[in-house]
């Protein structure tokens, strides 16, 4: 079930109404059943895959807590192996097999193993990482093993964040399932405001811009360097609004019921450096890699600077691989990691803050970091490495040709309006938080804000029910 469908709107209101009508002791069951229905609306059979990981990690948590020493570590390893195994099988089998086939072909051999033919279980990378987070935290002693199977299952399956995050930590969410929740007007309105802004990002900005980006990126050889450059920049805005829009809807719907999910985006467009942009982007994933991969490696590196910088690249490479089984994602991850490392070395050696006034550092830092991260996204969007390299070459050499066939189509003005609205709102949120529209204390301004956003959604929103990009991960 897609968040941007009428079905979901009905589903959300029914589940929320039942949630507050039911006594507290039955609410977890309602949420679990609703989450199962939500998930099975995509491909029902894949609930078995999810069920398998839930059972494995539930028992792994208990065994880890009960055991000590090497046995404890063994249970953790078994749990992680089961999760990675499922992820590897469904997500990476064909990728690895294709690469083996390519390698064997170089020596005139054939690969007897054929590719598997199935659709990737939706949101697999998200709930697998969330499940691993649980067993690791139990192993570290930060979280007690959950004894109630239904609550643990709900931790993995809680429908707002089941298929595209935020990737939660057990310490943040499990205890909330035990707390009795009361309907609170302020909280419900605050949640719905977040949902409204999420829909704006998805329907008005992301889906509107996707029309242009898809047209260009699905036929990159037909377009000029200028067109590819503009499409690449717009793609960054598209993917940001698509994913953060989903996160907002997830966070908002959970908030209406009284649950606090972690923040997933913090206006990355205004990050003043490449590193800061990444600190504001997909926070739940990058903090996952930081907490469970980078920090243990960094401790072993013992302040060895070269190793620490290399680990940053490793983390980004892994994050690229997490996004998809394609070399384009790996290159994107590698490039992103290298850009962070280069920036850190530059700042340490040159110390530009000594020579450049703060205001200019902020302006140039924001623009340059945006260009670097946006251009790296062309690897994220390109269909394959060959296309990506063609796009890089076309942009670098500014391949001849017009930006448009003839004069700009009217749709292009919509892209500009949509992106401009987003940037203006984010600038206000970041630098002038006292200026408020839908959070204004004045009731007239507040209601005018609601109506303006809803009218803009109705007038220029795209209602073709397109999937969220991150569903594929």
């Amino acid at each position, binding site marked *: 079930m897609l968040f941007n469908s009428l079905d979901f709107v009905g589903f959300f209101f029914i589940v929320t109404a039942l949630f507050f009508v039911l006594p507290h002791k039955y609410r977890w069951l309602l949420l679990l059943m609703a989450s199962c229905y939500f998930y099975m609306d995509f491909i029902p059979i894949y609930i078995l895959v999810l069920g398998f990981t839930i059972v494995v990690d539930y028992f792994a948590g208990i065994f880890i807590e009960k055991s000590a020493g090497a046995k404890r570590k063994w249970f953790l390893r078994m749990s992680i192996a089961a999760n990675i195994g499922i992820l590897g099988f469904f997500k990476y089998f064909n990728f690895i097999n294709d690469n083996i086939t390519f390698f064997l072909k170089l020596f005139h051999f054939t690969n007897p193993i054929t590719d598997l033919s199935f659709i990737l279980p939706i949101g697999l990378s998200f709930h697998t990482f969330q499940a691993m987070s649980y067993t690791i935290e139990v192993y570290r002693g930060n979280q007690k093993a959950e004894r109630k199977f239904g609550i643990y299952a709900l931790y993995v399956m809680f429908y707002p964040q089941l298929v595209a995050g935020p990737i939660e930590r057990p310490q943040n969410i499990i205890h909330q399932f035990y707390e009795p929740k009361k309907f609170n007007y302020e909280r419900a309105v605050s949640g719905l405001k977040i949902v409204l802004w999420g829909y704006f990002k998805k329907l008005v900005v992301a889906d509107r811009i996707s029309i242009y980006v898809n047209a260009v990126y699905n036929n990159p050889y037909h377009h000029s360097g200028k067109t590819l450059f503009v499409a690449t920049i717009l793609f960054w805005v598209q993917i940001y609004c698509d994913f953060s829009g989903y996160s907002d809807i997830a966070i908002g719907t959970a908030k209406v019921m009284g649950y606090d999910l972690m923040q997933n985006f913090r206006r990355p467009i205004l990050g003043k450096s490449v590193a800061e942009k990444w600190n504001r982007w997909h926070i739940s994933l990058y903090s996952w890699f930081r907490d469970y991969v980078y920090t243990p490696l960094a401790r072993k590196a013992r302040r060895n600077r070269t190793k620490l910088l290399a680990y940053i690249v490793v983390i980004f490479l892994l994050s690229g691989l997490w996004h998809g089984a394609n070399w384009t994602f790996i290159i994107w991850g590698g490039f992103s990691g290298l850009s962070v490392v280069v920036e850190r070395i530059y700042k340490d050696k040159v110390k530009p803050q000594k020579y450049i006034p703060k205001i200019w550092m902020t302006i140039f830092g924001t623009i340059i970091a945006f260009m670097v991260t946006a251009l790296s996204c062309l690897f994220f969007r390109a269909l394959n490495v060959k296309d990506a390299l063609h796009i890089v070459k076309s942009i670098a050499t500014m*391949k001849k040709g017009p930006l448009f066939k003839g004069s700009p189509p*009217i749709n292009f003005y*919509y892209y500009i309006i949509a992106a401009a609205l987003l940037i203006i709102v984010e600038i206000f949120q970041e630098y002038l938080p006292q200026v408020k529209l839908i959070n204004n204390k004045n009731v007239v301004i507040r*209601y005018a804000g609601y*109506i303006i956003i809803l*009218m803009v959604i109705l007038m220029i929103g795209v*209602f073709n029910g397109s999937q969220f990009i991150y569903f594929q991960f």
Partner: protein
Amino acid sequence: MTKEEVKHVGKFFKKFIILLVLLFITDRIIGTLLENAYKNAPQGDIKTFAHSITDPTEDIFIYGSSRAVHGYDTRVFTDSLNLSCFNSGRENSNILYHTSILDEMLKKHKPKVIVLDVSARELTWRSAENSKLVLASMILPYVHSDTSFANIARQLFPEELMKAQVSKIYAYNSMVLSLAVGKRKFKDKNLNGYVPIHGTKITGKIPASQKS
């Protein structure tokens, strides 16, 4: 539910209803303004569509997707055959779209020649889905006044019809800029439905997979 919760729920629904009423009023006001602009100064695709179904008079009518819109110069047909010609093609459409508007046109006018441009690519499920959306964007403004369009919408996209019945603005989704600015800003290059495109020469090598 506790008494306090009931109080909160009551407050929530009271404010929610106020918002819905304000939203309904704004929707009707803006929707009516857009409706007037749509009827009085149609532009581009809207103009082509409106002519095809409301006052068709030409001898030749051309139907097809973007290949027809940008490929069939109505002036050539008129010069060569000495017959008036109108290009009713629409980008991103397929036979589903053409059938629907052709039926509407034939109720009012019988042309001498009908040209239907169809390629194999347009017979896919995806193409039909796109065509439905294109058709929806064109006929939703008419569903309140034209029962045959309302019936088409009920059959092909009942959800869209429902949205258009709830919101008056929704029927004019994505048209607001062209309706608001109209002829003043965007030069209409429409030549009896034919839209030439210039500057489309592609330089460099194109892989076979991307050649249409």
